[in-house]
């Protein structure tokens, strides 16, 4: 059994963040406990995870912050340099992403924001602004 010794606060924070993401992901997976995974018809995914209130406040209040965070994730996912310009109007195909890259970006956004994007919604995303709008719509739908 490997002994985990975290040296430094940054590693502990990373561990806690991963724990939080994991708990949210567990809620998402547990919500699909009795549903059969198939490609026929729409998947009814229950939004059971509750995001933290501070994230909800920031995401609802400041839309440019969401777009900026999405741009950061897109840059990280496509291995773009920091000085390359990625704004709300940038399309994923213009940045050099193929269809699998787009799905990977959507999964990265799910992990970052703690949400579950429906399959039909995920396929319609083609620009950074559309991704940010969809994320805020899902977060608003999840909030009580």
């Amino acid at each position, binding site marked *: 059994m*490997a002994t985990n010794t975290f040296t430094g606060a940054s590693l502990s924070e990373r561990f806690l963040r991963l724990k939080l993401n994991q708990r949210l992901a567990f809620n998402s997976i547990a919500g699909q406990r009795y549903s059969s995974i198939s490609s026929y018809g729409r998947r009814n995914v229950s939004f059971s995870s509750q995001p933290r209130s501070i994230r909800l406040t920031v995401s609802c209040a400041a839309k440019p912050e969401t777009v900026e965070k999405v741009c950061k994730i897109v840059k990280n996912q496509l291995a773009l340099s920091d000085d390359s310009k990625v704004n709300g109007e940038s399309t994923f195909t213009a940045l050099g992403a193929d269809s699998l890259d787009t799905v990977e970006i959507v999964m990265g956004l799910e992990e970052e924001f703690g949400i579950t994007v429906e399959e039909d919604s995920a396929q319609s995303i083609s620009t950074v602004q559309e991704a940010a709008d969809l994320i805020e719509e899902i977060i608003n739908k999840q909030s009580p």
Partner: protein
Amino acid sequence: MANAALRNVKVLPNSANMEEARHRVFEFFRTACRSLPSVMEIYNLYDVVSVSELRSSVASQIRNNIHVTDPKVIDMLLFKGMEELKNVVDHSKQRHHIIGQYVVGRQVQDSATKDPDTSTFLKNFYNTNYF
């Protein structure tokens, strides 16, 4: 908990066309990505890899077969992929298997193929170690 999501997976009939097979590949990738946090927990991989790196590793393995155009072959690959995912989530593998295949294996393969001075013997040695 991820076992519950994968327990209901059935063997689907063959894809009618290329578009349906492509749709199923994305569905499988999405299912695999949603299982990664529980895989991190089962095998205790927090100190060697992150979820995004595992996701990139899974995506690169799917991209290795990007040249396949026969829907029957894609269905067979998806079946094998789902079987592998089920083995990983059910803890039918050990920690070093996950590390060797999805964390370190890609780097070793990339470094082996990028070095032109490596002899054929060493190239084959590196390949057989991780397949």
